[in-house]
């Protein structure tokens, strides 16, 4: 059922879920930019992707992949983010967070654009078959 469950759409869904998760973490880091003792969090996606890569090339529709993504939830790195600790023991790096914010938003826009194109293609496929 390539048309009803196109692999691209499920990949897009997985990407958007991750993108949202990342946005939540960025929002939390930015909200706590002045909280003493707060440690920045980061979604460690690339490392998990690397360990997955060996036996299973990035196929977000596979159960193995989705289980690793759901495991990400508990894997959020609390202390591993490199950044200098200020007097208040807070290591939120403002520039890094803002870059991440912009990147995340742009990636989401691109992917949603791809989604719309995919739907358009499916739609035109249906239309052409009808005539």
């Amino acid at each position, binding site marked *: 059922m390539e048309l009803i469950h196109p692999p691209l759409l499920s990949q897009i869904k997985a990407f958007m879920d991750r993108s949202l998760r990342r946005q939540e973490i960025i929002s*939390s880091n*930015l909200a706590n*930019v*002045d909280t003493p003792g*707060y440690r920045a969090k980061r979604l460690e996606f690339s490392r998990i992707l690397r360990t997955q890569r060996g036996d299973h090339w990035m196929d977000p529709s596979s159960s193995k992949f989705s289980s690793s993504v759901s495991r990400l939830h508990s894997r959020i790195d609390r202390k591993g983010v490199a950044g200098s600790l200020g007097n208040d023991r807070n290591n939120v790096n403002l520039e890094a967070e803002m870059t991440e914010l912009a990147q995340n*938003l742009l990636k989401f*826009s691109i992917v*949603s654009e791809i989604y719309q194109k995919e739907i*358009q293609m499916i739609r035109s496929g249906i239309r052409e078959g009808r005539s």
Partner: protein
Amino acid sequence: MSTLFSALDVSASALQAQRQRLNLLITNMANSETTRTPEGGPYRRKDLVFASQPLQSFPEILAQLGGAGTTLEAVRIERIVTDPSPPRLRYQPGHPDADEAGFVAYPNVDPLEEMATLMSAVRAFEINVKAFEAVREIVQRSIDLARA
């Protein structure tokens, strides 16, 4: 379970906290020369303490029951403290609040320090507005998907 609107709550908590901080700063600045207060003595500089707080919405609590930890941390004002540092003494023998030696106790407010904190609070407010807008953009784009 999407916690998309919780991300907005986190940004909103930061906006509220920073605005509260601004209010306190303004109070400090306005009273930087106040020598009389209801408690007696000169005005004392006020400061506040931020603390992070895991956001506990209903879906979040459900998710925790399922074993997953919460990702969202809002910010709240833990308490408002009074700066214990001594007041600044100025020699003004003619002043009605002067002591026997002619010194008037002025508030322990340093305008330079307040201005620096003011800038930091405004910046923090701005970046959280940016984060808020980013989430709104993502929601808007998700809605647009349905129109494709």
